[in-house]
């Protein structure tokens, strides 16, 4: 018995039980309605036939008086399946007919009996089954004699029994049906839910790479599992991003923090001139500022990569941003004798964030100016804005040493500074930020070219922008 409550805890079993109860109630109500309707029809038919019989008897009585009536009643009483007949004197003594005994008080009625009464047919007195029931019309004859004509209700009783049996049968079938539904549909669904439960328990226990089972049937359960899996995927990537950020912060901020501390310590040790203290403190502040900048950049990158940045986006004109950034860097480029060339078709809008795109482009251009060496023709950087297919490409090409194909992927990672670039100042975060910005815009950052320079391309999807 202990197993039954456990089974009832499953949704499938509860649903089956609920359906079963509902169907049963409906069936019972229907049967009750049908039965009472049928009985009413039956009763009215019975009454009609009894009334007809009474008419008949009355005609005979009018023609032949009481003796003729008694004769007719005697004759009809003996026929099989006869009506109930009874002629009694005013005191209720039975004179003729096929009724030997009947419920007391019935004969005091006039007209139709109010309700079915019990009676015994002639020759059945003392029988145990005194449960014949009947309805009857009672008529007072002119000489105070009482005539009763009735009809047995055995047939409706049988009808009721048939209905009751049918009902039991139907209920049985429904119970079996309910069980089958539970077994085949419910249990199967249950099994799959159990699969999902097991998988999620495993995932909760720490197996973050675990995924929910997908049967391939493409039904609701599969869709649910697929969505949950996509959610897990997203959580895992956010988690990974978060972990990476904290790792990076721990790892990469420790170095400058140590340097900062050393510098302060160094300033304290030994006797120094005021100017030296001042220098040391200024150096400390500069170091701290660089730390803050790096820290802000890491935060920004991780927010953008995680995709939970709330930066607003709007239609922005890449041509205008390009012009702004070029204008901003022009003097720097000129000082470094890097020739800047711009190729743009004019106003080109994408959905994005002006600040972020401006920052990404300035980081890229900054790099290009730093590393442009010039192969024979003097250092130069070419900025090109173009529409290709369903993308808008904003590229910066320099003619510096470029980045070997094997290193390109690494070059956009946080804090990665390729060997060749160690001699240049920088935090190693510029391209990582640009990449994060492109990720935020639903685009990508591409690095190409090797010997004849590096081309960094920001590819924006058109008509889309928000990550």
């Amino acid at each position: 018995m202990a197993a039954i409550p456990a089974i009832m805890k499953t949704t499938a079993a509860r649903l089956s039980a609920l359906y079963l109860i509902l169907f049963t109630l409906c069936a019972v109500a229907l049967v009750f309605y049908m039965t009472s309707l049928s009985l009413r029809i039956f009763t009215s038919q019975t009454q009609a036939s009894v009334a007809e019989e009474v008419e008949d008897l009355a005609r005979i009585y009018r023609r032949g008086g009481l003796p003729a009536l008694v004769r007719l009643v005697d004759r009809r009483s003996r026929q099989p399946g006869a009506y109930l007949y009874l002629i009694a004197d005013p005191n209720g003594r039975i004179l003729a007919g096929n009724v030997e005994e009947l419920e007391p008080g019935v004969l005091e009625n006039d007209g139709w009996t109010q309700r079915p009464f019990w009676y015994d047919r002639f020759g059945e007195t003392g029988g145990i089954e005194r449960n014949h029931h009947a309805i009857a019309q009672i008529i007072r004859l002119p000489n105070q004699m009482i005539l009763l004509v009735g009809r047995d209700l055995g047939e409706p009783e049988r009808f009721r029994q048939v209905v009751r049996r049918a009902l039991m049968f139907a209920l049985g079938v429904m119970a079996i049906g309910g069980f089958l539904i539970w077994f085949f549909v419910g249990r199967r669904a249950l099994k799959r839910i159990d699969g999902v439960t097991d998988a999620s328990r495993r995932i909760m226990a720490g197996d973050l790479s675990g995924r929910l089972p997908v049967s391939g049937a493409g039904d609701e359960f599969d869709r649910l599992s697929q969505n949950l899996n996509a959610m897990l995927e997203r959580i895992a990537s956010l988690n990974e991003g978060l972990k990476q950020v904290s790792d990076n912060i721990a790892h990469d901020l420790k170095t400058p923090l140590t340097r900062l501390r050393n510098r302060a310590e160094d300033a304290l040790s030994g006797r120094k001139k005021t100017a030296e203290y001042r220098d040391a403190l200024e150096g400390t502040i500069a170091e701290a500022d660089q730390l803050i900048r790096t820290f802000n950049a890491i935060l920004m990158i991780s927010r953008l990569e995680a995709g939970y940045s709330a930066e607003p986006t709007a239609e922005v004109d890449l041509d205008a941003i390009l012009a702004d950034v070029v204008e901003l860097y022009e003097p720097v480029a000129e000082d470094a004798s890097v020739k800047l060339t711009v190729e743009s078709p004019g106003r080109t809008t994408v959905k994005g964030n002006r600040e972020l795109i401006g920052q990404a482009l300035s980081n890229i251009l900054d790099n290009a100016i730093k590393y442009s060496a010039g192969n024979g023709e003097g250092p130069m950087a070419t900025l090109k804005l173009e529409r290709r297919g369903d993308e808008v490409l904003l590229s910066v090409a320099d003619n510096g040493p470029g980045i070997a194909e094997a290193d390109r992927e690494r070059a956009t990672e946080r804090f990665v500074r390729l060997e060749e670039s160690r001699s240049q100042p920088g935090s190693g975060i510029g391209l990582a930020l640009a990449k994060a910005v492109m990720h935020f815009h639903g685009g990508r950052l591409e690095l190409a070219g090797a010997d004849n320079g590096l081309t960094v391309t920001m590819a924006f999807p058109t008509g889309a922008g928000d990550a």
Partner: protein
Amino acid sequence: MKILVIEDDREAASYLEKAFAEAGHTAHVAGDGETGFALADAGDYDVLVVDRMLPRRDGLSVVAGLRARGKETPVLILSALGEVDDRVTGLKAGGDDYLTKPYAFRELLARVEVLARRATAQEAETIYRTGDLELDRLSHSARRAGKDIALQPREFRLLEYLMRHAGQVVTRTMLLENVWEYHFDPQTNVIDVHVSRLRGKIEKGFDKPILHTIRGAGYMLKAD
């Protein structure tokens, strides 16, 4: 200048109090939003420095409340939230400037001084004058000692901003924000190069320097 600092971090607040005093200003400190609101509402301050996250009453609500009561004291909002969106919300609430923590005090000081002056400066003037330097905002022309100086449009805006805040320290980020309208942090100091070009144009051939570099802070346009 009287400054009210509404900041719940005691150490930061007392540091600001001291640093403002050293810069020649009087700073009062309120440790929570309600006290800050009451002080700002009753007192006669030149600038309010309001931290965004405060106990008892949020910094933005303090600013919005003051503005609703018709108080027009310039407000600089300090915040640890630094996304563009946060800045926009801060300025919408009635803030006049927004600075992200951690910040350099010189940056804060420069901005506070500019804010205090803005309340009095006549921005509507069409001709700015600093010493013998003159800038006509209508004809987009500049002259020094009667000699025309040819400026690129951006150089003109740069000079215009410097002249509007003549005698005040202007930081590099303030220039990037107000002249280029970007809030990011350029890796190389591109602003310095722009300023030195401008300096070449307005100082070369003239005997006195007028655009000064303030070490560790920024620039100041000032006639001796």
